């Protein structure tokens, strides 16, 4: 199971030709307790770097950027009533969207865990 990271603090787990996307523990901690999350509608095509979802704390809304180009498949509906699951388990049950990977070559531009960990200290 391969997990990639972005400098925008998203993670992407590859499951066949599908990407499961969420935010890192570092990002979840920085944002504080989340009160709301939503994603683009299933079927929407997003380019790498486009906003694919939004998470909101008491204070502010933050965009989640698509780590790769693809089509949105599903939003983690559990987050509709319990966005704080992202804080409790950011890199597991608190995933945010599933999407297709249109160009697997884009994965090569992402970071591995060691590189990301070094980035956030």
């Amino acid at each position, binding site marked *: 199971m391969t997990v990639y990271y972005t400098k925008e603090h998203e993670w992407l787990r590859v499951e066949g030709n599908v990407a499961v996307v969420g935010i890192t523990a570092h990002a979840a901690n920085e944002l*504080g*307790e989340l*009160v*709301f999350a*939503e994603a683009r509608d299933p079927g929407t095509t997003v380019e790498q770097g486009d906003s694919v979802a*939004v998470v*909101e*704390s*008491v*204070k*502010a*809304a933050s965009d989640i950027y698509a780590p790769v180009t693809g089509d949105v498949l599903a939003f983690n509906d559990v987050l*509709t*009533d319990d*966005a704080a699951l992202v804080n409790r388990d950011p890199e597991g049950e608190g995933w945010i969207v599933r999407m297709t990977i249109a160009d697997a070559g884009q994965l090569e531009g992402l970071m591995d865990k060691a590189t990301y960990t070094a980035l956030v200290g």
Partner: protein
Amino acid sequence: MNPPLLRTPLYDLHLELGARMVPFAGYDMPVQYSAGVMAEHLHTRAKAGLFDVSHMGQVRLCARSGLLADAARALEALVPADIVSLKPGRQRYALFTTADGGISDDLMVANMGDWLLLVVNAACKDADFAHVRDALGATCDVDMLADRALIAVQGPAAEAALAGLNPRAAGMRFMDVAELELAGVACIVSRSGYTGEDGFEIGMAAGGAVTVARALLAHPDVAPAGLGARDSLRLEAGLCLYGSDIDLTTTPVEAALEWSIQKSRRPGGARAGGYPGAAIVADQLADGTTRRRVGLRAHGRAPVRGGADLFADEAGTQPAGRVTSGAFGPSVGGPVAMGYVAADHATTGTPLFASVRGRLLPVTVTAMPFVAPTFRR
């Protein structure tokens, strides 16, 4: 290049308490501590939160005659509030108005016996000071009390926390002001705040701030709270943030703040008018305004933030106004906002639609505050 950020006397204590610091009004201020905005907000409503508000401006206004009445009369040339009848040991909310009826700041005015203490917003304090000095300097001494700190303790446990340091605090009622010694430090204490909770605001010389803050934090129910919680608390309480909900373009009547203009300053009153923009405000008091500040509750869980456009119809073809601040209200358990809407949409219960990320979300005009205040009147 920006000038270096200023630090309050509690800066080192904030770092020790695990604060995340952010620039605010030229100061390096704690936006939250390790507990986080949500927990700090809820703790303030359940027990008590301690806030550093030392960045705010404290101005001393004293008539050269030595008579408080002369300072009060002088200040009434700048604010529509009744200052003359403000009794010693009492505080009142006021607005600095402009010639066209706008608001250049909101402030608290306290009668300290032979002088008036003005507490003004951090971002406006230099302009406010210049404004007061230029307008009143011929008859009054106007001093910026720069080397002072201000600490707010807010929430149901605030009384016990202060009374543990000085029992006289418990005898104060809402908007009382008293000079009290706390932890050996001479303080000016008012029973007031910016959260909708009972609580106190405590001014002292900068050198005593850490002593007082530590003494209050030693109470088991008092925890530090940052600017993040301060904002969500004041929003739930329906209180305006200067620069967002009120500014030079909003009048006291549009802002639904006419309660801060006492009868004596209104048309027919003993000292009617006499402040900048008084004729415009008088007309609006009589005839109403074309827009009005209202509270808004969203139906879903998506927060509606400041800047969101409001519409009367779900298709978004009939503009109705704009949101000026909004957040998720931790105590309400849902999104809360305030904004300006056209007068014909300002009635409580009016359904409107807020534009959020290209979608129109249903909201309802709602009476404020969103949470019941717990002031000890």
